[in-house]
């Protein structure tokens, strides 16, 4: 597995786990009450911060382990990595656009900030996850 694919796997695993943890914590805090009453800001900020740090830590640790087996491959990326990254960005971007449109609609109807922020949050999360899955498929099945 090449350096860039390891980074994508790390980011993908952390994104999926981050979303699951976020949903569980928010639902627990709500405890059956309306979701808009949850103090979502610290939960969301901790999830985003934790995801970024988690992905970096996993990449570094995995990189060290992989580097011991294949010292030549450490930190190396090439044209195929860049092509896959471009494709992944294109795939993921669709979800950012959908989330952006959703935010505009929610603002137009003066929805609670909870729904506006969470629409954007899940837009980012879906964009990252779908883009990551597309990248992994491209690495495994091919990109032609």
């Amino acid at each position, binding site marked *: 597995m*090449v350096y860039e694919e390891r980074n994508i796997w790390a980011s993908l695993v952390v994104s999926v786990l981050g979303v699951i943890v976020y949903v569980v914590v928010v639902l627990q805090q709500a405890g059956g009450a309306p979701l808009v009453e949850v103090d979502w800001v610290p939960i969301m900020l901790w999830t985003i911060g934790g995801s970024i740090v988690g992905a970096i830590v996993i990449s570094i640790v995995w990189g060290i382990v992989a580097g011991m087996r294949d010292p030549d491959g450490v930190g190396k990326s090439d044209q195929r990595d860049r092509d896959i990254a471009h494709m992944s960005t294109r795939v993921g971007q669709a979800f950012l656009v959908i989330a952006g449109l959703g935010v505009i609609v929610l603002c137009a109807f003066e929805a609670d900030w909870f729904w506006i922020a969470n629409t954007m949050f899940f837009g980012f999360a879906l964009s990252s996850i779908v883009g990551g899955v597309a990248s992994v498929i491209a690495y495994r099945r091919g990109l032609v």
Partner: protein
Amino acid sequence: MVKPTRVTNAIRATREAAGMTQADLARTVGVTRQTLIAIEQGRYSPSLELAFQLARAFGVGLDDLFDYPGE
């Protein structure tokens, strides 16, 4: 489902005939070994620049290394 490329190549046969390993050729053209494997197996279409570099590494022309069937 990934659409297979119609471009085929003779990189593996040419490389083996030249006595080169995948690691040797990958290092020569500046890609990872995994990228070279993907090209040899037809799972990745190299850029024109990389195709020229591969052909030059063997001292052959593009047509000797890559083939694109007519309609």
